[in-house]
């Protein structure tokens, strides 16, 4: 049997450095003849001229996907890291739980068959072959919204859905006290709670997708199957302020905390972790121009861009949202590993950094980012201002290793319309958080102290989380905390293209009608010699800042 994994390069540090070093051409500087640049702007894309001298960081091209995904999965199950093969761990009377990453990954959703479907098909077949009948499939939603039947069917595939839904395939419910178990406390007094079904299982199999280095590892189980009682120990302002960055697990207090919890879980559970990595092929076919350096645009690329912009601009907002969220990305799987959580995650991380890392020299005074229409928490929903904040300050600011792309006290320009618009069924507590809590303070510590518990225990929000499709009542707080390192680091945040300045003001930001105006506002304080960096999306990039 061929071994597709052997086709992958051995991920030695030296080679990785060499490969990443060859990516210096992904950092370009705008000159007078440079083309305008595509900037995500909510549910539209801007095409804007950037000031001469602006440094533009492009994502690396997609790595070559595995030639035979199913064979690679089979190989991983048969040759796991530091564990016996999956089949060797099975016996007919055992109780097995399979936890699956939820709809928040990957973004946008991937074309069918989803990786999770392919993994599930092989894992479930192996379990069936060895006579394991007591199998439950749990969507590891943690405090995310419940996935709908159609959404679950799409990610697990028809075969698993038909056989397991709804009795043995369901969303995790972090508010069902009868189905939670406390496993103990870490050395840092962190309570470790987990799905009781998972805790009582003889084998817990976790199916993960690593879209960015923040995902996977101990965080999969310790967060994905955990309730508020556990999450509050690391999803808080103090922990997140000590994370530099979320994309660098070695320097993230968030990851250190979830690692401690994960290790405690490992002491009482047998976990077979399966991690996958996908490449950056987010947009293919007619939209592949979004991946290109605009200086290399052909006439056909410009025509497509104009057509795309025109189409989006002329759609109703609902239709535009539907079209964008229904788009499925042609991601390619670039790795799959199984076995011991830490060893598996180490390999997955190396591969993910191989895909995303770009070396960048020095920090900038001003960082420009565009917040797109989607983030992990608004799939098939609305990108509300809190989520735009989380995407801009939480995720995009943290797309670095070593040092942030923008210097301390610098300015971040976030391109997004920032409308006072929320999904009343998906984000009910966000509405109150935005209009009531942020009206009183934007200080994360104050918000935690004054409001977090009230929202976390609010019966209506709990009801909507458990029986509707709402994010947990405490979720907007986490989204706000997510931006805490950026708020501590930055001097100013300016929302470019902001349609509702009062929304920006509510979040402590300044508002500018256009990107030019935002740049003028930033340079008026920092001077015309201020250095500007634009982090070009899509897809994604992680800057290794020297």
């Amino acid at each position, binding site marked *: 049997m061929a071994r597709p994994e052997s086709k992958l390069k051995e991920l030695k540090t030296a080679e990785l450095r060499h490969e990443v070093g060859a990516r210096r051409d992904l950092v370009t500087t705008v000159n007078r003849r440079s083309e305008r640049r595509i900037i995500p702007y909510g549910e539209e894309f801007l095409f804007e001229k950037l000031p001469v001298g602006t440094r533009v960081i492009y994502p690396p091209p997609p790595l070559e996907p595995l030639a035979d995904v199913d064979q690679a999965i089979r190989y991983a199950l048969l040759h796991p890291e530091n564990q016996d093969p999956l089949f060797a761990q099975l016996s007919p009377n055992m109780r097995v739980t399979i936890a699956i990453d939820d709809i928040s990954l990957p973004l946008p959703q991937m074309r069918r068959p989803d990786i999770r479907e392919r993994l599930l098909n092989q894992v*479930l*077949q192996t*379990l*069936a*072959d060895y*006579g394991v009948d007591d199998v439950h499939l749990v969507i590891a939603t943690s405090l995310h919204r*419940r996935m*709908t*039947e*159609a959404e679950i*069917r*799409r990610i697990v595939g*028809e*075969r*698993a859905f*038909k*056989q397991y*839904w*709804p*009795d043995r395939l*369901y*969303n995790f*419910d972090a508010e*069902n006290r*009868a*189905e939670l178990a406390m496993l103990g406390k870490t050395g840092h007094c962190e309570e470790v709670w987990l799905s009781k*079904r998972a805790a009582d299982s003889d084998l817990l199999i976790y199916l993960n997708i690593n879209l960015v280095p923040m995902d996977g590892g101990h965080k999969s189980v310790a967060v994905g199957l955990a309730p508020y009682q556990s999450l509050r120990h690391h999803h808080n302002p103090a922990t997140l302020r000590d994370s530099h960055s979320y994309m660098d697990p070695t320097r993230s207090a968030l990851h250190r905390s979830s690692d401690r919890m994960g290790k405690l879980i490992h002491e009482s559970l047998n976990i077979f972790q399966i991690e996958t990595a996908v490449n950056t092929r987010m947009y293919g076919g007619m939209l592949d121009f979004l991946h290109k350096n605009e200086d290399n645009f052909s006439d056909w690329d410009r025509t497509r861009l104009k057509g795309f912009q025109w189409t989006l601009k002329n759609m109703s907002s609902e239709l535009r949202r539907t079209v964008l969220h229904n788009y499925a990305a042609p991601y390619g799987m670039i790795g799959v590993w199984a076995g011991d959580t830490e060893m598996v995650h180490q390999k997955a991380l190396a591969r993910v950094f191989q895909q995303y890392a770009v070396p960048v020299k020095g920090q900038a005074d001003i960082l420009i980012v565009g917040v797109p229409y989607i983030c992990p928490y608004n799939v098939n929903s609305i990108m509300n201002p809190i989520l735009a904040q989380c995407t801009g300050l939480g995720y995009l600011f943290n797309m670095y290793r070593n040092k942030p792309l923008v210097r301390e006290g610098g300015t971040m320009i976030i391109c997004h319309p920032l409308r*006072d618009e*929320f999904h*009343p*069924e998906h984000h*009910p507590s966000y*509405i*109150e958080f935005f*209009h009531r809590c942020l009206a009183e303070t934007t200080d994360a510590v104050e918000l935690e102290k004054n409001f977090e518990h009230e929202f976390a*225990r*609010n*019966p*209506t929000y*709990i*009801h*909507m989380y*458990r*029986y*509707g499709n*709402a994010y947990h009542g405490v979720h907007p707080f986490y989204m706000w905390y997510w931006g805490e390192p950026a708020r501590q680091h930055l001097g100013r945040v300016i929302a470019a293209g902001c349609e509702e300045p009062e929304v920006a003001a509510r979040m402590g930001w300044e508002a500018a009608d256009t990107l030019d105006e935002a740049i003028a506002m930033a340079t008026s304080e920092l001077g015309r010699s201020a250095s500007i960096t634009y982090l070009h999306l899509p897809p994604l990039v992680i800057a290794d800042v020297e």
Partner: protein
Amino acid sequence: MSVSNSRKTANGSRANPRRAAFYDLDGTLVGLNLVNAAVFMLANVGEWSGRLSYLLGFAARIPQLYLAERRDRRLLNTVLFESFKGVSRDRLFSLGEEYCERILIRNLYPRAVELIEANRSAGIAPVLVTGSPDFIVAPLARHLEIADFAANRLVYSRGLATGRLATPVMATDEKAVWCAQYAVEREINLSDCWGYADSHYDTAFLAALGHPVAVNPDRRLRAAATNRQWPVIRFEKYQSPQDREFPDAGGALDELSEIQSDGEQHNEPISRYSRRGSDGAS
């Protein structure tokens, strides 16, 4: 307040909660409406001949009720309660008990009851604010252990219903006014209170409260809720398959919620996972 009922606590003092949750009844806590109650009452009000005449009279009013409902909820209440003209007060109250026991309680949304209890546990006192008559609401309030409610009251003359409603008629803006008065009396802040209702006629009632929630909203309330960014929740009578997640999780999970079943249709037969060779699955 003429339409309110408020019971004192065991030691004689009136409980003074910091926060309250105001619930509409028909369509919000229960999957029935006023017409169900009226038909039940009139069909059981007296001898067969009397029942028939009451029901025929009610049937004759249906076009009028339809037009009234389209025009104004207050008018609907007024027209509907005219049907009870001539029925004795005692009979109405005894039928109210019976209707509550036999019909109303059985049609309560289980998740609604769960939410009332959860709110109560969180220190949010329940209050019913409904256009239903007091002879139905009182036994229900007792069943749900709700101390305070506002309901419509018939005017009686010599023990018989006149068919007229006592003011204020609990509909549309009057609900909001009643809540404001209640809040003043109890020294609670309406901006800390929750409201649950299902109809666009309750928009003013919901808007008066700090935390309005649209429950199973009609088209116009849904539009208002979306526009005003009010949370929208759904109660259903039957449990959806998605909620049978934890068979041993206890009574709280024997209930219902909505799922979206707009999944893709697949016509080809799907093989099951089974031991290779046993049924041909690969």
